[in-house]
């Protein structure tokens, strides 16, 4: 499989009144065509900002301040607006967390879909409408011609998210960035949408970056996982590997805090402490203050080093493969 996206040393900062917050700091990862990457981390770890940085949608006071984002060979950071405008919605699409907020409340669904078609394809309104209907059918919405004439408030949350996904799929993009698209939905709808998106992406060979704070959601979906903490990737690798043998104490903490059937009744482990403020990060390893394994060595920030095939971890004292995970 050929490489589609290569993010190198990405840095995105917010210049706020209280100081400079480096929301994304030295993030690097690659993504092949058709591959699904799960981007996991606690709230505030920089997942959304990473996604917005790729699309060039970071709003002031924020700005991408360093690194490269190579998409099919073109550097999106260098290319800037002109390059990005041509890619957004056409080759890179995005789906947002809250389906109640992503569709414009005062515009009909057809307006919002047709404009998307016409933004990138020189087709007539009728042709654009036909494509919109097709897209709605693809995400499982029946009688699309009628549905197109509705306003967003006439749909349920799950239906709206389907519409948003249909919009994202309109131009059969190479990459979809999905920012917690199921978090706001019921569990049953969540599962439906997950499997639908998975199916649609494998049909069309679309690569997917699935952003979530919920490990359980991505573990069945993603080919690879990247775990973020305080704007950095702290562990990366094939999903099954990372879940079975987490190397970073933080990843391990995350996995232990996911409720599992077989541990029914057992107390859930929690990661002690709180996410540090970006304006006041500790020296050295950012996780050290909350880490059970921290020692003097952690006063120096570890690098993201390879640790086995396809895996990398940013830790001075990673867990080894031989250590079994402590259950209970």
């Amino acid at each position, binding site marked *: 499989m050929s490489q589609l996206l290569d993010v190198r040393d990405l840095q995105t900062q917010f210049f706020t009144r209280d100081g400079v917050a480096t929301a994304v700091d030295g993030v690097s990862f690659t993504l092949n065509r058709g591959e699904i990457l799960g981007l996991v981390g606690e709230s505030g770890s920089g997942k959304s900002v990473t996604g917005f940085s790729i*699309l060039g949608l970071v709003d002031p006071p924020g700005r991408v301040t360093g690194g490269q984002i190579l998409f099919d060979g073109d550097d999106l950071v260098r290319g800037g607006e002109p390059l990005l405008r041509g890619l957004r919605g056409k080759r890179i699409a995005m789906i947002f967390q809250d389906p109640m907020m*992503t569709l*414009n409340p005062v515009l009909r669904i057809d307006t919002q879909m047709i404009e998307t078609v016409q933004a990138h394809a020189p087709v007539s309104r009728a042709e654009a409408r036909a494509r919109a209907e097709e897209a709605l059918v693809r995400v499982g919405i029946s009688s699309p011609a009628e549905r197109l004439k509705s306003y967003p408030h006439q749909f349920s949350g799950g239906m709206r998210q389907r519409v948003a996904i249909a919009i994202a799929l309109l131009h059969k993009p190479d990459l979809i960035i999905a920012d917690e698209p199921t978090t706001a939905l019921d569990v049953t709808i969540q599962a439906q949408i997950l499997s639908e998106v998975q199916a649609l992406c494998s049909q069309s060979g679309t690569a997917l970056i699935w952003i979530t704070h919920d490990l359980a959601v991505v573990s069945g979906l993603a080919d690879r996982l990247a775990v973020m903490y305080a704007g950095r990737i702290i562990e990366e690798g094939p999903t099954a590997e990372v879940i079975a043998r987490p190397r970073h104490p933080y990843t391990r903490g995350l996995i232990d805090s996911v409720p599992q059937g077989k541990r029914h009744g057992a107390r859930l482990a929690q990661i002690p402490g709180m996410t540090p403020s970006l304006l006041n990060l500790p020296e050295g390893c950012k996780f050290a203050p909350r880490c059970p394994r921290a020692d003097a060595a952690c006063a120096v920030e570890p690098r993201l080093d390879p640790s086995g095939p396809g895996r990398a971890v940013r830790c001075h004292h990673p867990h080894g493969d031989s250590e079994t995970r402590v259950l209970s």
Partner: protein
Amino acid sequence: MIVYLVRRVGQSLLAVMAMAVLVFIGVYFIGNPVDVLINPEATQADILATTERLGLDKPLWQQFGIFLGNALQGDLGTSFVYGRPALDIILERLPATMELALVALFLSVAIGIPLGVWAGLRPESIAGRTIMGGSILGFSLPNFWQGMLLILVFAVLLGWLPAGGRGATTEVLGLQVSFLTWDGLSHLILPAVNLALFKMSLIIRLARANTREVCLQDYVKFARAKGLSPRRVVLVHILKNIMIPVVTIIGLELGSMVAFAIVTETVFAWPGMGKLLIDSINLLDRPVIVAYLMLTVLIIVGINLLVDVIYSLLDPRIRLSEMKG
């Protein structure tokens, strides 16, 4: 929609009735018009005769009953001063005021919305800050003072525009309008600008605040993520959302434009209803005052009704819930 309309019309009629009572009682307490109208040397008999002729000897509720009965037939009384139907006198002046108010409203919208949206899109830029600074001036300087300043600069110092009066008018559909000839237009510009400044500042601030709020919404980011041009994002996705509060304000403000026109018309000697009202208050010409107030109420209530309809057309969410309700 029909049910909704009928209900709103009913509410409007109630409002007009309530206003009629208030206006009538209010005017009753201003003073006795006979004192002003009558020759100071008149005898007691003359005074009584005049009072009787004007119907002022009857008890208040009876006067109100007569007024209401006549009003329903379109008769708002006869001016004590001009001896002609009060409504006719006012209607003669109405076109001048309406033209002034509409032109001023047009100016405040056509200039206010683009400036406000611009300032909202770039709140930190120099242009954005300048626009906001200017709007604070327009907001806080007294209207009559702005008017006199305009006269001083453009009429007296520069001599570009006349200082007062209405100038030549043209008849269109039976109405006298100024804006079709240069002479008329030149008389219209200064008072219209004067009347517009305050509303323009209001609209700028409103449009800016709403633009800033709408810009933060996910649907704007989503629109950009779809690859739409910035033009389309602003002109369709943002503008359509900020139009909802702006239209409401415009509607409410057109009514108050007519009211505000009193000051502007007085400063610029514009022969409209506002100037007539001031003159009538000085002369205690009760029927004209009452007729003016009633007509103004009707205009404002009518505009509000219209705004509600436009509002429901703009915002699909309202349309639905109101139709259900």
